[in-house]
């Protein structure tokens, strides 16, 4: 279990990384925290010819407080984001998700951007990106653009990021004030990838009607998915457990689960529905307490 050899470059800045990537685009891979990539290389499931290491880029102001949300540089470790006061104040649901990522030893090295670009459909940060309408700042040697998270994930471990591009930062939008949120996962062991996960946000108006709702599932399709059909049934309504149970039936529209060595596709479908109800119930409770 040793990686195949490769050429190693230590990037000193994102611009430098883009230069290197442009020179080696066909064979190169970006190394950030390496908590998935190095494991895959140890198994020789991945054999990049060239690694461009961005884990030691000098990176002041990793997390910035912006008007409509919090911007996190892609190379920020998950542990730094998890303990950051601005993130804890404005995006407590993101802190909850970060705490579900593997174990604290992994989060000390794993990065926020790395988890997103790795695009494991069962991982938390791609799902949180959909929940929080995230925008990704993407850079190549010649270009810089912004892409909405919902356009980013193509299929298993595959994103719209081109081979000469680097994810620079993520803007997680702050949901309405006084919203409630919840995240639920079923995993084999604390810190394992979720067999099924679900997250929800609900915001209420003065009359107790739902004015903003997001429902996201992960581990149940080739990418994380937003259950828009569930959301549509809840907007403008006074929520109740009965309504949630009715709405959660609609998750089957986005669930495209596979059976694997752990559980069957049918199990994943059932659990997706159950966890959606739990997330909605808990999100509503938090919203009612907050307002």
């Amino acid at each position, binding site marked *: *279990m*040793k*990686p*195949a*050899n*490769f*050429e*190693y470059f*230590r990037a000193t800045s994102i611009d430098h990384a883009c230069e290197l990537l442009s020179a080696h685009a066909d064979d190169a891979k970006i*190394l950030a925290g*390496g*908590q998935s990539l*190095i*494991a895959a*290389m*140890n*198994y020789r499931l991945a054999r990049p010819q060239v*690694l461009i*290491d961005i*884990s*030691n880029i000098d990176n002041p102001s990793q997390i910035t407080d912006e008007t409509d949300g919090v911007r996190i540089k892609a190379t920020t470790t998950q*542990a730094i984001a998890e303990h950051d006061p601005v993130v804890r104040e404005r995006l407590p649901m993101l802190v909850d998700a970060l705490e579900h990522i*593997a*174990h*604290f*030893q*992994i989060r*000390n*090295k794993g990065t926020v951007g790395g988890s997103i670009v790795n695009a494991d459909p069962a991982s938390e940060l791609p799902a949180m990106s959909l929940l929080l309408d995230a925008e990704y700042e993407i850079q190549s040697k010649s270009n810089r653009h912004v892409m909405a998270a919902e356009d980013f994930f193509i299929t298993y471990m595959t994103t719209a990021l081109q081979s000469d591009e680097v994810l620079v930062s993520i803007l997680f939008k702050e949901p309405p004030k006084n919203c409630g949120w919840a995240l639920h996962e079923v995993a084999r*062991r*604390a*810190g394992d990838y979720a067999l099924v996960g679900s997250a929800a946000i609900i915001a209420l108006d003065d009359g107790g009607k739902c004015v903003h709702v997001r429902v996201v599932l992960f581990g149940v399709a080739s990418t994380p998915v937003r259950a828009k059909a569930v959301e549509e049934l809840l907007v403008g309504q006074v929520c109740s457990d009965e309504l949630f149970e009715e709405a959660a039936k609609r998750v089957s529209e986005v669930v495209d689960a596979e059976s694997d060595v752990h559980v069957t596709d049918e199990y994943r479908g059932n659990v997706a529905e159950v966890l959606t109800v739990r997330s909605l119930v808990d999100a509503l409770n938090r919203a009612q307490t907050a307002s």
Partner: protein
Amino acid sequence: MVDKQKIHLTVNGTAYDREIEPRTLLSDFIRHHLDLTGTHVGCEHGICGSCTILMDGLPVRSCLTFALQAEGKAIETIESLDKNGELSPLQNAFWENQGLQCGFCTPGILMSMKAFLEDNPKPARDEIREALSGNLCRCTGYHDIVDSVVAAAEAALSSGTAKA
């Protein structure tokens, strides 16, 4: 054939300069190049936690780190805990409470718990269990490990220092 690259880092307070293949994992660098074999290598994909070391004070998996990524950093391994053969309070707590049997997982657990107790000097048992979830032990059933961590925390507090 890929050229070797230079690396400079500090391990347990000693500075080292070496030339290594880029693919050298930090775990293998510590064991094979520095002969510090106290760091154990179990699963080699980040699950078991045996290879956990401290990098600039933070516990990380040395099997999921290339040695070249530790350039300029300060590494601490299990060999840094005792002072001239005298066990640290944390090691002593494991000794007294039978917090180990075969001992394979112990280096990783001790390095993880050293950092954990510095962050959280008075942990509840549930918090200890949560913090141990990243280290697999197939002998003890964890119960005596939790007792050991509780004892280490108490010993550190009663001696007036949070240092484990």
